[in-house]
């Protein structure tokens, strides 16, 4: 069993479902709500099997009423339950953001800590499969910018399970973003690097800590979700050329682990940050600003690879031209490496 466990590989979808299932078995206050999460098991597979295991009281399909059921989850959380709700695509935040950022995220503060809001909002992010401008966005910074909620995004199945268990047990609202290009649904295609061994045992991954995926001395590459894998691919190609890149997975967008970023760039003196959210007022810009305001000496100007400030186009001929990828990261690294030690 343990032998099999050690080598057992899961997709992020299955890792999320396992974390939910294990926590629901452990904690009777946990329940799951959202569109198509019960009978269907979730459009993206992350609630598969829960209805059969825990029944319709604790695994609830909802009407297409995001404001209604997210607000309802906040009331359940205030009453001591631990709801996990799904917003099918993060693109839909516009119909329900008030219940998230003005209600859930501020309940602890407005009540001086006397009323808590332990809830998880799971939501799918990312494009690259031709789903166009209302079903392919990431919106990391949209959530990271607003106080009172924690925001996490796993880049592997291992992280997905550990972050989900931490998220459910956290006393605060946690936005759990899962990337469609990593999810492991056959019909979506998947980055193989996201499918990893996942222990069956209970384990947590701390929220608020970035993860140094590989250490390096010449340049710091920062990514999250899908772009983490692009960074790893780029790092690999440079390793062959004898260039040592340090790759950091943000894992948590809010609160942002600035110390880890600053320490890394202090060491390497070069920074390339990559994310697939819109560029302006975005994740990679915040990474660059955080490092620069700390006065870290740089050997080259920091660079960012993000999605440009345009709606996401449908045609693959257009979408793949503008999406971040490892080639774009490599080009930025090349530019950074051209700068010697001045």
């Amino acid at each position, binding site marked *: 069993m343990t032998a099999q466990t050690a080598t057992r590989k899961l997709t992020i979808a299955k890792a999320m479902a396992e974390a939910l299932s294990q926590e629901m078995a452990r904690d009777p206050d946990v329940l799951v709500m959202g569109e198509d999460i019960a009978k269907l098991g979730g459009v993206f597979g992350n609630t598969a099997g829960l209805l059969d295991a825990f029944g319709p009281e604790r695994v609830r399909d909802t009407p297409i009423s995001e404001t209604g059921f997210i607000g309802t*989850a906040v009331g359940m959380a205030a009453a001591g339950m631990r709801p996990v709700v799904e917003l099918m695509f993060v693109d839909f935040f516009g119909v329900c953001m008030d219940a998230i950022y003005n209600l859930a995220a501020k309940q602890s503060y407005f009540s*001086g800590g006397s009323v808590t809001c332990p809830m998880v909002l799971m939501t799918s992010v990312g494009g690259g499969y031709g789903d166009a401008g209302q079903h392919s966005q990431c919106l990391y910074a949209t959530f990271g910018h607003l106080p009172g909620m924690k925001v996490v995004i796993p880049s592997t199945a291992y992280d997905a399970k550990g972050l989900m268990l931490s998220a459910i047990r956290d006393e605060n609202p946690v936005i759990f973003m899962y990337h469609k290009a990593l999810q492991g649904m056959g019909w979506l295609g998947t980055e193989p690097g996201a499918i990893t061994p996942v222990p069956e045992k209970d384990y947590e991954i701390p929220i608020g800590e970035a993860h140094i995926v590989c250490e390096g001395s010449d340049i710091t590459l920062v990514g999250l979700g899908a772009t983490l894998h692009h960074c790893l691919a780029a790092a690999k190609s440079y390793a062959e050329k004898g260039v040592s890149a340090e790759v950091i997975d943000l894992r948590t967008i809010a609160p942002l682990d600035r110390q880890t970023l600053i320490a890394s760039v202090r060491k390497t003196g070069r920074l390339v940050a990559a994310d697939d959210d819109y560029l302006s007022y975005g994740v990679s810009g915040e990474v660059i600003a955080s490092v620069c305001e700390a006065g870290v000496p740089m050997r080259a100007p920091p660079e960012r690879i993000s999605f440009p400030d345009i709606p996401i186009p449908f045609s693959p001929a257009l979408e793949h031209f503008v999406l971040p990828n490892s080639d774009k990261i490599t080009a930025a690294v090349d530019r950074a490496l051209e700068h010697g030690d001045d």
Partner: protein
Amino acid sequence: MTDASTNRPHRILMYENMVKSRCFEDAIKPAYLEGKQPLFNMAKGPIPGEMHLSDGQEPCAVGVCAHLRPEDAVTATHRPHHIAIAKGVDLNAMAAEIFGKKTGLSGGRGGHMHLFDPAVNFACSGIIAQGMGPAVGAAMAAKLRGDDSVAVAFIGEGAANQGAFHETLNLAAVWNAPVIFVIEDNSYGISVSKADCTAVAHNADRAAAYGMPGIHVENNDPDAIYDAAGEAIARARRGEGPSLIEIETTRLEGHFMGDAEAYRPEGEVERLRAADPIPVYRARLEADGISRADLDAAETDAREAVGQAFAFARESELPPPDDAFATVFTEGSRR
């Protein structure tokens, strides 16, 4: 159905809470204007920001809350004082919160639109219709735990045109949640009259769109409200699901303090004040044989409680500046 006219203890308590709420608002008025005169500046004085008074709407609060227990949840709006008082929110901590003091319900972080008292399950919000979801959630939590407590969401008639109204009523009905939605229809949303923005004469009729009972209560009548709420709450406790209650009430003050109210028709305020529910209710109670002594005592108790609360609020310290950074997140996690 309860016969309110014979239910003396409730009626005296209801009257006392109406008076207490009005005394509270009467105490707010001069305090709010301190430092804001001669030139009215909302930023100044011991109570900055917007101030939405509940004068005239007391019957809605007391008639409904007379049926509620501490464990029953109530969510209110930007105009929350009368409801908070009727639900039994700690009056000292509430006043202190409105003065932005350390001893306030949330240590001065929330202010008058963000009053939270978990001891009596009360919360409110400054966003129109935002409290409706949480009320459904509190009701579902009770249902899932198998106890018979209920939740009540108070909203204004203006909120009945907000999408959240539709989504939460439908969800409550589909899930058969023990929740009661109470519309305080004071016929205005700031300056916009109900008639100018609402496609039905009575929002109670919208209950049919969710297969739930819709009750329309006229004349701002505390006893009629008490009876209607009693039925709806008993129904919810029996597991028979949600109800919608629409109450015709009156806003005797402006939308917020400082409102010039030029949008009101000639003489409206005078007409409404002539029907002030507090003297009207006292007269009825006397006519029904409740002794003046009992009613005077209720008034005295109410006045004293409010006086104490404001004294407490004034004496309390402002929070240390660093408190701004505390309680953004609740520490710890369930292990």
